[in-house]
């Protein structure tokens, strides 16, 4: 019975989001602290080093960590204000059970009661409908150890094939393409290669807002004289300064990259030696773009032909170059193809395995890189192993001490799990670190699916919009309440240190999973007594896989401020730059070109829905906003979604900045204020997606998936935009000020 127990308003009143505005005790309390803990930001894949100041088991502030090499003290506003997520009035401190008669819709229960209910429901559902009818959804804002544990827990405790994670909405297109082309799913370089590049090509990455610290690396390259190319439908803050800006139409990335490859070939701006020695399949890839002339590319992408040629010239004639891409090219039904078309450009010009050369995805989620390697994707086992590969299964079974047949087979992906719930095939769900009601496309569909669950248990530290549907909510831990390792976008494995203990009766996530496993009678596989023990087993489980952590030690990770995998044996220095000397990770050491034919997105504009919609992030919010929508200063920075549109479109609609517009797609509609800017294509609108309910951009987006990576096409939908007339309720009343007066008195 996974409907929300009481009205939205009642839930919000009790569980927030409320806004935490000031540190514990107020600003005037003075900055008194007992200790300073070196750890990392919990938001985004850059995992910036930060020093948290702690007093009486509360995080009260921060100090820049100047010595951490990745960010040298730099932080974005989320990192600065992250400490306000602790000591928060919305923090869940007790297990909760759905109870429509209780204030706020949940009653407080004991851990014993909550855990036995969860165990009983898992057993009931699995007995009635089969093991796979109980699914698990996870996320990658959690550590490597927890990711590993979730993978093992789902396979050996829940014994379900249906485990997937929210990285499915994030890095899977890049991961799949990198594996296909290069044999390994990791950014090709440490970020220290970026400043060495003579040309930096940023494709579909709003670096300034989504990976802000990377900006400094790009500027370091430019300080050396590097040129900057940016491909984006919007003039992002970094694109503003680009030497070549390619303002392409949403969904035409592979046409742009194909055209650039065409121009490279036509002008012979190629590295033939590299192609011959280290790659396969160039001819086929070249044949595919034979007709992709600049004129054709310009017609498809909407970018002036001379700019495409200029971008190709810069990329092709520079001795070194880095191509950085992110969700802008990956959130597509052609996500994998788009990434492959970027990799083709790197391979064709020999920009791999050398200083200042590489094609890298900028991983989005906190532990997006590490989390996807430890085996909580539906098709993977630890070490980036393939769950369908008998050798891989046998190895992991041996590490786990189980019979190979006990490891379930390949399951379905996150969006497919939600669809299976909707279809009544999956009846029970346990989730951690995932707020699909905000983050999955087609919000209405997701809500309908959740309502159909017979039982839903959720582990979280705040009552997220998805958790509101739960039958049992188990209060887990914030990142600063547990230790472990994560692996950043660079492939650098780093140490997260616990600053405080979980408050109240909240518990560490891994302890909760261990208790459920015990309840299910599977404790023999889960004899861990610390995070470190999980790490030790994880490292062995990863050994021999592509993401090999075997040589890392708990102490080395901390002392060396991170180790880049692969690190296959003890004493191995780690591998900041992959593919040195053109040796790729396929067994034959060669990279593969892939022919990429342009095809249109799943949904294209037509007379009924004539405007392109693309979605994305703003700097002050993180993903579904469960944390950042509760931090007052961040909410103030960008309080509600705005619909960006070009003055030409605004004029035709009779809209000026601040007017309310109604945006309608085939899935739903929303009303929101317009922001009229010249920094977006005239045929496209942009809406950020961090908000729930009536403010959710994902009410409009399309559930169409990439056939390989199964990533949804967030970046392209067809919509209709009109000026909203009459009374329009835009605010969801989801934000109520905790304190009227901002300043405490000391």
């Amino acid at each position, binding site marked *: 019975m996974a409907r929300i127990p009481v009205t939205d308003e009642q839930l919000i009143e009790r569980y927030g989001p409320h806004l935490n505005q000031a540190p514990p005790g107020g600003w005037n309390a003075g900055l008194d602290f007992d200790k300073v803990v070196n750890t990392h930001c919990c938001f985004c894949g850059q995992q910036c080093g930060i020093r948290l100041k702690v007093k009486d088991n509360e995080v009260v502030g921060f100090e820049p960590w100047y010595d951490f090499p990745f960010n040298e003290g730099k932080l974005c506003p989320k990192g600065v204000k992250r400490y306000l997520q602790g000591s928060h009035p919305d923090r869940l401190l007790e297990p909760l059970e759905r109870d429509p008669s209780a204030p706020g819709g949940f009653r407080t229960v004991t851990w014993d009661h909550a855990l036995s209910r969860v165990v009983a429901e898992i057993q009931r559902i699995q007995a009635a409908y089969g093991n796979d009818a109980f699914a698990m959804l996870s996320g990658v804002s959690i550590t490597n150890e927890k990711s590993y544990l979730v993978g093992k827990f789902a396979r050996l405790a829940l014994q379900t094939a249906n485990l997937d994670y929210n990285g499915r909405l994030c890095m899977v297109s890049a991961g799949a393409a990198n594996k296909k082309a290069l044999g390994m799913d990791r950014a090709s370089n440490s970020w220290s290669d970026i400043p060495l590049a003579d040309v930096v090509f940023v494709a579909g990455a709003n670096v300034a807002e989504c990976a802000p610290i990377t900006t400094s690396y790009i500027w370091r390259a430019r300080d050396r004289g590097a040129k900057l190319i940016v491909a984006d439908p919007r003039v992002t803050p970094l694109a*503003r300064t680009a030497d070549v800006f390619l303002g392409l139409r949403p969904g035409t990335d592979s046409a742009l990259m194909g055209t650039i490859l065409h121009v490279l070939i036509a002008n012979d701006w190629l590295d033939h030696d590299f192609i011959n020695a280290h790659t396969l399949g160039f001819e086929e890839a070249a044949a595919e773009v034979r007709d992709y002339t600049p004129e054709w590319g310009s017609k498809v992408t909407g970018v002036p032909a001379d700019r495409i040629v200029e971008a190709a010239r810069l990329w092709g004639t520079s001795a070194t170059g880095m191509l950085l891409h992110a969700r802008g090219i990956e959130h597509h039904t052609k996500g994998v193809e788009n990434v492959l078309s970027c990799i083709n450009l790197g391979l064709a010009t020999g920009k791999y395995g050398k200083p200042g050369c590489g094609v890298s995805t900028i991983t989005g989620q906190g532990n997006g890189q590490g989390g996807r390697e430890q085996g909580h994707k539906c098709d993977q086992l630890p070490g980036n192993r393939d769950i369908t590969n008998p050798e891989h299964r046998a190895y992991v079974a041996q590490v786990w001490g189980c019979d190979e047949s006990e490891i379930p087979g390949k399951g379905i992906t996150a969006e497919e799990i939600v669809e299976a719930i909707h279809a009544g095939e999956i009846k029970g769900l346990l989730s951690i670190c995932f707020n699909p009601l905000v983050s999955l496309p087609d919000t209405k569909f997701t809500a309908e699916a959740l309502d159909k669950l017979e039982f839903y248990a959720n582990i979280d530290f705040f009552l997220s919009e998805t958790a509101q549907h739960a039958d049992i909510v188990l209060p887990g831990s914030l990142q600063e309440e547990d230790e472990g390792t994560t692996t950043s976008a660079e492939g650098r494995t780093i140490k997260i240190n616990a600053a405080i203990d979980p408050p109240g009766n909240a518990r560490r996530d891994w302890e909760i999973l261990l208790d459920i496993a015990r309840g299910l009678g599977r404790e023999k596989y889960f004899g861990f007594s610390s995070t470190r023990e999980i790490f030790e087993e994880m490292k062995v489980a990863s050994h021999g896989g592509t993401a090999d952590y075997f040589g890392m030690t708990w102490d080395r990770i901390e002392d060396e401020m991170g180790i880049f995998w692969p690190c296959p044996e003890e004493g191995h220095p780690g591998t900041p730059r992959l593919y040195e000397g053109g040796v790729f990770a396929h067994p034959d050491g060669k990279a593969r070109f892939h022919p990429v034919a342009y095809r249109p997105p799943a949904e294209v504009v037509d007379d009924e829905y004539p405007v392109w919609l693309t979605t994305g992030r703003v700097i002050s919010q993180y993903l579904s906003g469960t944390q950042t929508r509760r931090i007052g200063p961040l909410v103030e920075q960008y309080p509600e979604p705005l619909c960006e549109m070009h003055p030409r479109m605004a004029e035709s609609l009779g809209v000026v900045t601040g007017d309310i517009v109604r945006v309608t797609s085939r899935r739903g509609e929303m009303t929101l204020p317009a922001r009229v800017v010249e920094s977006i294509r005239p045929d496209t609108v942009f809406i950020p997606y961090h908000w729930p309910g009536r403010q959710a951009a994902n009410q409009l987006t399309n559930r169409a998936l990439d056939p390989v990576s199964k990533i949804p096409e967030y970046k392209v939908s067809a919509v209709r935009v009109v000026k909203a007339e009459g009374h329009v309720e835009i605010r969801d009343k989801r934000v109520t000020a905790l304190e009227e007066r901002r300043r405490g008195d000391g």
Partner: protein
Amino acid sequence: MSTSGSTFRIDGRAAMFAGSAVGVLLVLVYVGSGAGRWFDAALAGYLIGVLMGVFAVVYRYLVWIQRPPTARLNRRGWESFRRKGRVGHNAVGLVGLVGTNLLAQGFIRKRSTARWAAHQLVFWGCLLAAAVTFPLTLGWVHFESVGQQGSHYKAFFFGIGTGSFSATSLVGFTTFHLLNISAFMVIGGVLIFLFRRTRDPGALAVERSGDFLALAGLFGVSITGLFLTASTMWLEGRYYAFLTNVHALTVIMGLLYIPFGKLFHIFQRPANLGVHFYRAEGARGVQHECRECHKPYASAMQVADLKEVLPAVGFDYRDNAGGNWQDICPSCRRKMVTAAQVARVGGFG
């Protein structure tokens, strides 16, 4: 700490006024003390200190009030106050402002209750102490023993008798211990201030010796005064002569410090009341529109005042086109500086 632009020339006019103030005070001492009859010779040192202090404060005040921005504000404040048809309203307002602002100091409370409490303690302690000691020092008040017991006293103000009281009564006790009470108040306030400082490394960093000197001075005067009481009450007057000298020295030094240090704000702060009237007057009048964004951002009066004051303090923000940088609002100034800088690095933006 430099006060930029100050010159160390003697201001003859200010000196003359300060000298006159000292003269007037001397006449009052003469009259108030019955031509010296009731003047307590033991307080002569204090009198000299007071006279020097008065000279210094008046001189410093006059120099300050003549600075172009101060003079302009002073004039405008009074003009605003005396504005036809508003004098009555303003007078009532002034009484309120004196109460809330100068006496109750609500603006400090808004910053922090602890800071406000500390300041109130020091403020009222000092005021109380001054109310007791200045009339005594200047010979305006003296006590005479009345009746047979020797414990009854009568207070005289400018030689005119007021009420009499018993030294052992509550009134008597309080009267003779007013200074001790004030000393405790001041010390309490000073300790709160110091405690806050030690817990606030930020404040410490921007603090300059002037602040600590003021606190140290207040503390010194209070504690040496208390020592005198302690000597009389519990030590049968031991060390009294020595302590008297120490106390006198700290008081005199304190008086002379007033014009130079933090304590001069006692005389500057009332200008804040003028600002209230100036601001109200400005808000009622024409607003100045920014030359760039055409939005009003300040009172036309204040912008005009600044345009006159700036040349007087050595700045010329006029441009060749007959405009003035001061006609642009602060926000547009920041944006234009950015635009200009951006143009100088290759035209991003």
